[in-house]
């Protein structure tokens, strides 16, 4: 059962030679064989390549190259939006049919250098557009706690794979909550780092000014280990911060005395599930008992966040997705002229949600509408960022529910995009502000038993505080040790 451990546990056992990287990976592969037919987290899997990486990790360890390499031999799955040289890169879309990446994303390069076994392509909403992984062109992923329910999205495959013990960790991407929301709904830890802390080179762009790569893990410490490996300045990403890799493991200690935590007044909305609310309230009391001081704060422009997000994100997406035209790679459906080829290719290649967002984004950038939509949204975005920066003058971090409800049933919101968009109401402002956020388990609904997530938001480069708070809470509770019923 090596696949069920945390990274820290497995790394210790690998270090003591109780287990080899190959055996650990094999345990993951066996688990995938056992459950993934029903769960459907993996879109594809190159077993031979994964095993070769595991063998190489074992060889490195045998050569004594394991010092300060906590990820050496650790199996980590990747969302189908990250480029891996020689592997398919599909974004769960038909339009990238047959595309094999000729290069590694910076995060993949870094994980490989750290000796991690980077394997699999896990499911997602097409081009990361969605909150349920139902927008994948290759079928939905189940929630390990209830296969009839959604795992969240867009990084639903990553969350499900980690929660179901198919891998030790996974990477996802978060544009408006796509890491934190599925982490909450599947009961694992998910981190959206500060914008610019992790290089976006090799992350297929959805909304460039909002996208950020982050880890899914089964413990707070594990998330810190992965973040340390993937963060740091990258000259290939001009929006990358001039910061070295961040090591938050050292910040993980002690109680929360002297820490001030804020509860945003505006996040106390109607429509929040009573069980979610009571779990979060209990978590706040727990944090207080750990020594944190709890204050109410105000983020006055919160109500505009979702609208602002859907203007900026779709505007950027409309340009980012223009390159999928059938000319150079991926799907091509010929036509009598280029325009017809574009129309046929894109018509057949993109799913309805992606089309909806491209149309919306094209509209808000159109001549005559730009000022009213895009420009105005940018101004509101600045106000939202200022709200957070002002709040962080008063408190070290903010505590909120990650989602208003626990996982819903597959199909429940497919026909109501607005309802679907509201799933991300608590996670979206963080991306607009460029700050960091983490979700971790804070309880369960009673019937059915579904995980509930607690979101902690920190200031730009405030990851250490996030990890300190999250770890203290995690150590005081046992939610993260609960395993889903899938067998």
């Amino acid at each position, binding site marked *: 059962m090596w696949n069920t451990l945390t990274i820290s546990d497995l790394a210790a056992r690998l270090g003591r030679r109780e287990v080899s990287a190959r055996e650990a990976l094999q345990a993951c592969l066996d688990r995938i064989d056992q459950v993934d037919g029903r769960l459907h987290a993996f879109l594809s899997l190159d077993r031979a390549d994964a095993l070769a990486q595991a063998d190489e990790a074992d060889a490195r360890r045998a050569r004594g190259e394991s010092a300060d390499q906590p990820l050496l031999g650790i199996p980590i799955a990747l969302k189908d939006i990250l*480029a891996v040289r020689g592997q398919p890169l599909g974004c769960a879309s038909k339009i990238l049919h047959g*595309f094999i990446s000729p*290069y590694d994303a910076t995060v993949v390069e870094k994980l490989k250098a750290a000796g991690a076994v980077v394997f699999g392509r896990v499911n997602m909403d097409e081009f990361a557009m969605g909150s349920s992984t139902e927008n994948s062109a290759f079928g939905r992923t189940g929630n390990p706690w209830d296969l009839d329910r959604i795992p969240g999205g867009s990084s639903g495959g990553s969350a499900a794979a980690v929660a179901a013990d198919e891998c030790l960790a996974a990477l996802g991407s978060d544009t408006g909550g796509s890491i934190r929301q599925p982490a909450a709904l599947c009961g694992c830890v998910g981190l959206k780092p500060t914008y610019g802390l992790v290089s976006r080179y090799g992350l297929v762009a959805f909304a460039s*000014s909002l996208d950020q790569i982050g880890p899914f893990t089964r413990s707070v410490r594990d998330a810190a280990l992965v973040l340390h490996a993937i963060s740091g300045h990258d000259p290939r990403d001009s929006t990358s911060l001039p910061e070295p890799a961040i090591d938050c493991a050292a910040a993980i200690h002690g109680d929360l005395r002297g820490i001030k935590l804020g509860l945003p007044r505006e996040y106390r909305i109607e429509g929040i599930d009573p069980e979610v609310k009571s779990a979060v309230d209990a978590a706040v009391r727990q944090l207080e008992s750990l020594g944190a001081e709890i204050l109410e704060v105000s983020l006055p422009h919160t109500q505009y966040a979702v609208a602002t997000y859907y203007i900026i994100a779709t*505007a950027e997406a409309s340009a980012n997705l223009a390159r999928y035209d059938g000319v*150079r790679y991926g799907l091509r459906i010929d036509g009598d002229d*280029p325009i017809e080829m574009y129309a046929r290719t894109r018509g057949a290649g993109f799913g309805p949600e992606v089309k909806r967002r491209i149309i919306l984004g094209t509209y808000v950038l159109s001549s005559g509408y730009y000022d009213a939509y895009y420009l105005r949204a940018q101004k509101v975005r600045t106000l939202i960022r200022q709200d957070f920066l002002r709040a962080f003058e008063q408190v070290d971090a903010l505590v909120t529910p990650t989602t208003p409800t626990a996982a819903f049933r597959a199909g429940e919101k497919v026909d109501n995009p607005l309802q679907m968009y509201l799933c991300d109401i608590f996670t979206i402002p963080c991306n607009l502000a460029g700050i960091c956020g983490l979700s971790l388990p804070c309880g369960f609904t009673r019937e059915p038993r579904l995980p509930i997530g607690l979101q902690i938001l920190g200031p730009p480069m405030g990851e250490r505080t996030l990890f300190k708070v999250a770890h203290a809470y995690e150590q005081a509770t046992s939610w993260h040790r609960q395993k889903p019923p899938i067998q």
Partner: protein
Amino acid sequence: MEYEVVIGLETHVQLRTRSKMWCGCANEFGAPPNANVCPVCLGLPGVLPVANEEALRLTVLTGFLLHCAVPELAKFDRKNYFYPDMPKNYQITQYDRPSTANGWVEFETGGGRARVRIARAHLEEDVGKNFHYDRYSGVDFNRAGVPLLEIVTEPDLRSAEMVYDYLNALKDILRQGGISDCDMEKGMVRCDVNVSIRPAGASELGRKVEIKNMNSFSGVRKALEYEYARQVEVLCGGGQLAQETRRWDDAAEITESMRTKEQAHDYRYFPEPDLMPFAPTDAWLGEVQARVIELPLARKERLMRQYGLPAADAETLAGDAALGAFFEGIAPRAKQPRILANWVINNLRARLAETSTSIQAVKFPPAAMLELLELVDTGRISGRIAQEVFAEMFATGDAPEHIVARKGLVQVSDAAALEPLCDAAIAAHPRTVADYRAGKTAALNFLKGQVMKLSHGKANPNLVGEMLQRKLQ
């Protein structure tokens, strides 16, 4: 009615950088199709642009050369349109915050000087190139992502000829400034023109027509001449001009409508989220400032003033930076800079061209030119022998003194040696002698030439002239 033409230009120039605008691929002409490509310039999923700093420097340097202001902040934007030669289906350009704006270019035209205002010079990326075959098309992306500078004038140009002169002046500035090689044949310079006509003396502008697809400066001139005539004809015939974009057909020498205002693209510009705005520091600007050169026109004037050169020679030297530098390297030590300029232009430049040699490869040191002129000046060799010595210098790099000594080319000024030669020439050409005596003074030159021939060019021509004159009196 008389109509005046009003023209504005958008000139695209490929920058002279080693690598492309956003990636490390070579910025190189003539490579096999798709040899200089990578995930970034092919627009593969997941890639990001990183700005080429030399391109940013060359843009600001252009700004300095064109007397533009350099704003505190420049940024990049996305210009959205679909075309198969565009890897991302958006072009990264500078929309409302160009790197440099509000300048002017001064140049000579129509026998005087003109100044054209520059609205802006902004940086963008070039696109690939489509090739069409029988049943399919191909795209070469070698050019995609090459840094491209777009220099936009105000509507200050008033004739096709003026446009032609402006373009040549601009080309000289950019070439000499090291901004671009401006090789038209390699597509390094492309330009679109905006042209309208209005009754002479009117202040309001007429309907603007944009013309694209001219691939030479003379093509631009022809297109404008054609377009002016066409517009005048339409208006004189009582017709109306449409605001439209027209294409120049170089073979047919006509313009034809491409699209009207109603069909114009909506480019949906918005700030490029993958690049940070660029705010140059004083130190950075200082480094660029240090690369500013003397402009060709200013240099021409200075050469005329400082060395007393005729306008044509000054222009030649100002227009060829390397030749000009060669000249200026030794001119301060020349007794007669005018004559030196003559030699540099008529001998050195001609030889360089004949032998396709670059000036850096010249075998003799520049000061040897001065030594050569000194030999002529002191009468040690004749001007004609000097030509021969120069040819030898150019071929071998030998010092002029050596050549003269080695080949025994010292001018003969010894009357005793020249007497018999003059007598021989007179004796051999009685008819010429008769002509001379009959008043045809030009006949003397023929006799003089004969003496020079007999002396194998070494005779002192002035002395020979005097001697012949005396003998024939």
